[in-house]
């Protein structure tokens, strides 16, 4: 059971991270980010459920809230990119480098 849950958790996390690394579309990358957070949250929830720790479960709720806030900020930034007339892709945003 442990292994199965953690395998799912890590797999989802890895998928999220891969999206972040491999995909250029900012929205997809945001998706990957959310995937990472939620994959980790699975671990928290599973840990809390094993011991019935209410603190752990409330932590999971808090994390979901934080993730939501993060998503809002991410979306607003992506919107800014749209508004500046650029396509929301990481390839475009390479003015700063070196």
């Amino acid at each position, binding site marked *: 059971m442990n292994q199965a849950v953690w395998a799912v*958790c890590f797999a989802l*996390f890895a998928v*999220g*991270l891969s999206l*972040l690394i491999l995909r250029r579309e*900012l929205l997809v*990358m*945001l998706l990957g*980010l959310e995937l*990472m*957070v939620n*994959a*980790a*949250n*699975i*671990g*928290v929830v*599973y*840990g*809390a459920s*094993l*011991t019935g*720790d209410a*603190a*752990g479960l409330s*932590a999971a709720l*808090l*994390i979901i809230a*934080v993730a939501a*806030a*993060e998503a809002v*900020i*991410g979306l*607003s*930034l*992506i919107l*800014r*990119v749209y508004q*500046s007339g*650029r396509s929301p892709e*990481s390839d475009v*945003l*390479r*003015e*700063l*480098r*070196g």
Partner: protein
Amino acid sequence: MSAAAVGGLLAPQMVLAAGLLGVLGAGMAAFSPKFIKSLMILAILGAFALAFGAHPGAGDALVGLDGLGFSWQLVFYAAALPLAFLMVAESEVAPALVLGSLLGLGILAVSANLLMLFIGLELMSLPAYLLVARSRGGAKTSVEAAIKYFFAGGAAGGLFLLGLALYYFTQKTMSFAGPGGFGAEAGIALMGSAALFKIGAFPLHFWLPDVYEASDPELTGFLSTALKAGGVLLLMRLAALSPAGAFSRALPWFGAATMIFGAVLALKQERLQRLLAYSSMAHAGNIILGVGAWAALGASPAAAVAVFFYLAAYLFMNNGAFSFLKATGAKTRADLHGLGARNPKAAAAFAVLLLALGGVPPTAGFLAKLLIFWAAFKAHLYIPLLLAALGALLALGYYLALLKDLYFEDAPAQAPALEPGRGLAVLWTCAVPAAVLGVAPWVLTYMSRLLAL
């Protein structure tokens, strides 16, 4: 402990929260931006005063204040002041964001629990993304930098959470007192990667030069001192979970790699903010080395003087340097040419700061480096120590190059028009302590007393 006592611990945070609400409210009530800014400054000053008068105590399961948190809180609020004074606030948004970020830092300082650390981390970071995006009037590059900051920071947050989950699963608790073991080590390493990201350790630093370059100078000062100090506190909390663990033992090497990489990369930069960004990496490397040495020596709060002093000195030096950029409007190294003659006062202050950043006695930067080296020596970290010495030499290379630009190069025939802003007062306020703290070692006695509270 009673709720009232916990509330007493949280007084600075409450002032900040109240200030945040007040700023938002004043904004909706269409008060003048000037008033809003003053409100923000007042809130920060109040938080600083309360933090200074706080009595450290154990608190409850989630919050508590020890010497480390106490001292760092002072750094956080003090480091926000240059930004607060210099920022251009046309509405309530920017002040609110600053206060929000500071609140996150304040929470970080009093966290006695990994979850609280996470909340503090996110709360200090999220407003920062927006502040970066709003820099330079929301210029394209600023948005680009914010996007990078956001995605990289988000990934770091994800890593922290994964580490938290691992830690929680194996330790059955989110407090700092777990039984330890492999799961804990792995969790610490994952969480620690988020801290290293915040400090800008190689190779988790690539966001840093872009962000520092695209932000307003005063914001970069804030990011590189206050937020970096937050990252350092996070790092120390995590390293203290297992002072002899693999993560702690890896830190000196990360520190050495970071400072060498940062110093080398800074050598050929032409744009000043990017140069100072890489230079701040070099300083971060020293700090990480200091944290590694601190952990190796047992991670007792009272022994953290080296790191604390470094941060305190760096607060003055870097904020001063960025307020110089603000005050003179210089953007590239060529802009500095002949400034020594054209603007002798600002140039003199900047020269002092550069020497301090370079670690030349009698400045504060010297004593800061000395303490780090010393700690590393005491912890038998000889090879990282030698690398640090090399890093100090490399770092001096670009600071001297800037001094050379400032004084030895003649201004070009048609000097590019600079857009000087305010900041001379802040510049000198930073330069004087940076100049003399190095020969004021009694400050250290005071600091170690604070840390031992």
